[in-house]
């Protein structure tokens, strides 16, 4: 279990407990947190679960999957610390993770 904080573009904070094994995307969707669309349902076929991972966390989480950067090319305003939240698997190590959500997903 990990406490994950999702910050909407307008600054609204949502901190929720997410079970190990789920993805950061699923943590948001299951808790009805706005700002993550996840149109393709986590198959890395779209870029609508795009988040910015806080710098100090970026190197601690699992590395990008092959093809993830290809999808991020198609995200709204990708940055250096952009990730697809469907590709970040939650574990105890991620307790305290903070992700910022972009202004919009499409």
């Amino acid at each position: 279990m990990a406490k994950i904080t999702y910050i909407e573009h307008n600054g609204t904070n949502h901190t929720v407990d997410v079970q190990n094994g789920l993805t950061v995307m699923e943590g948001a969707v299951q808790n009805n947190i706005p700002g993550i669309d996840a149109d393709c349902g986590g198959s890395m076929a779209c870029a609508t679960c795009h988040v910015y991972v806080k710098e100090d966390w970026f190197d601690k989480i699992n590395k990008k999957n092959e093809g993830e950067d290809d999808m991020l090319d198609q995200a709204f305003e990708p940055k250096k610390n952009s990730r697809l939240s469907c590709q970040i698997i939650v574990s105890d190590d991620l307790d305290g993770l903070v992700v910022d959500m972009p202004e919009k997903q499409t």
Partner: protein
Amino acid sequence: MIKTDALIIGAGPTGLFTAHQLKLIGLDCEIVDNLDKIGGQCIELYPDKPIYDIPAVPECTGEELTKNLINQLKPFDIKFHLSERVDEVKKDGDKWIVKTNKGTSFTTPNVIIAGGVGSFEPRKFSVEGHEKFENKSILYSIKDKNIFKDKTVSIFGGGDSALDWAVELSNNCNVNLIHRRDEFRGAQATVDKVHELTKSKKIDLFTKFQLKKLNGSSKIESIDIEDNDKKVKNLKTDYVLGFFGLIMQLGPIANWGLNIDKKTVEVDTEKFETNQKGIYAVGDICNYPGKLKLILSGFHEGALAARACFKLARPNEKYRFEFTTSSKAIKNRLGIKSD
């Protein structure tokens, strides 16, 4: 005005199999899709990715699945209206009048929405003021490449469309190619070609840069691009082309008076009918308790919606359930000689 028993919106796997089911029970149908090809998400998002959960098909790609579904429709004559988006659905007595953005109109008792997660549209730039230059100095697709002759064109993107056009246009215009990272996702041969043309100064390549600002009043005169370290470069340019792939938008479906929740349409599980009589939703776009976004669920939903269409299309006939293995009528429709 085209008259049909059922109009299907969306030519993805669910739309295709729903058409098959309609034809099998003796109804005619036509299909509209905003993409320029048949296959929906399967062909646009994952043509090469293997799928492992189609019943009786241990493994197939999105492209193979689409081909097989098209093959299955071969006995039937089905009219496809590709590169057309349905904009309007209006009630007219016990029929629906459906209009597309290209001016095609239909009258039908049954509209089946098999629209996946909506229609595919090009992803646009997000910088301030982009709207006023769109379709003039900013383009997301190219219809006539001759307009760029001897001009400066700034192409954004790292996929095949961006690279192919950079190579093509470098023949007779000045090309800036801008991409947000060093790696490209286009075909290796094209990537090599781009690097070659960059060396010979036919293409000016800027990687790790993104569009920051558009300068100009009635048309674009120059653009500012910014790298990861916030370093800004100004490029003189006549045209800006964006190739960031396609995004899915629910689009006009939201305006048809349907009950919509989180970009999906609520339906019952008997007919897959929406809150509007004669409008059905099947596949990823429909929502009901227990809904699974699987291709196989779309097939089931389409089969039931097709039977529901029969009632409205043939009000004076009674639908009779038949098996393809034994029904003479079905075999006739399939063009199979029965003995």
